[in-house]
């Protein structure tokens, strides 16, 4: 267990905010965890339908998005090292790349979703309800909910990083006080980890 090295002299306690962030990440994990439980149960109940439905999804877009997220995760992580090395400019560049990659991810997602919509696949659509089996309806229901919620997290994470960039520019986040930057990175990695599971579950296991 942790020792009782508690700092009362200052209100800045990076360790505390880091624990706080981790705890928040746990809640996010369990939020998606609930969806993963649902996914696995329905997959177990309708293996064939899930198999068929997954073929509708485009592995290439999925793979590209995976790589994008992995790279962006690395750039955020590097930003933490950069600020510790007192290289503010590099920090900003790395964070900037992350944001750009996030936007590219979202654009891809947009095209992917609108392609589905054009095929008449969206929650409650006629095509889905009349022509597809129950398992397929479930698959696409979960697909939209899970990737949608994930996209929402991308947006939040992106906003968080932009916010940190502003703080870095204003020198409120600096080499002696970078917990906020580290936390935005942690959040971004969480988004990445969730995608690491979403990708095989929806695009690969056909």
């Amino acid at each position, binding site marked *: *267990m*942790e020792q009782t090295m508690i*700092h009362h*002299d*200052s209100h*800045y*306690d*990076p360790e505390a905010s*880091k*624990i706080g962030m*981790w705890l928040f990440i*746990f809640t996010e*994990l*369990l939020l998606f*965890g609930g969806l*993963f*439980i649902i996914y*696995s*149960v329905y*997959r*177990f*109940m309708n293996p064939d339908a899930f198999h068929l439905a997954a073929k509708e999804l485009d*592995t290439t877009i999925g*793979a590209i998005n*995976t*790589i994008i997220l*992995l*790279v962006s*995760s*690395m750039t*955020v*992580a*590097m930003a*933490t*090292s950069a600020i*510790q*090395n007192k290289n503010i400019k590099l920090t900003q560049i790395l964070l900037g790349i992350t944001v750009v990659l996030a936007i590219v991810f979202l654009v891809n997602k947009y095209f992917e979703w609108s392609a589905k919509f054009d095929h008449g696949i969206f929650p409650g659509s006629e095509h889905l309800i009349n022509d597809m089996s129950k398992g397929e309806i479930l698959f696409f229901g979960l697909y939209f909910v899970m990737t949608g919620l994930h996209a929402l997290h991308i947006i939040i994470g992106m906003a968080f990083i932009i916010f940190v960039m502003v703080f870095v520019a204003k020198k409120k986040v600096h080499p*002696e006080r970078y917990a906020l930057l*580290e936390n935005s*990175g*942690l959040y971004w*990695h969480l988004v*990445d*980890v969730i995608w*690491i*599971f979403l*990708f*095989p*579950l929806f695009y*690969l*296991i*056909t």
Partner: protein
Amino acid sequence: MSNEKHHIVPYRTYIFVLLALIVLTFISIAITHIELADYTVAGALILASVKTFLVLTFFMHLKFDKPYMRIMVGFVLAVFLAVIIITFLDYYYR
């Protein structure tokens, strides 16, 4: 008040980790083309877990944090796993 200096991770480490992650991604795409039947799901999940492990340890700095952080993360994942397993006691035996 970080008088105990943080460990600064060299950029090189991150690049290696990224490469490993990308390789793992391609492996997991590749194995879906081989007919593994029931093991496809297992294979994909194992690869995803390895990737997650890498992200947690290096990108998320668990390797360099105090041990109780690792314990917490492990504990949470274990609880979640147990919940899934118990849920499946219903569906698997139904």
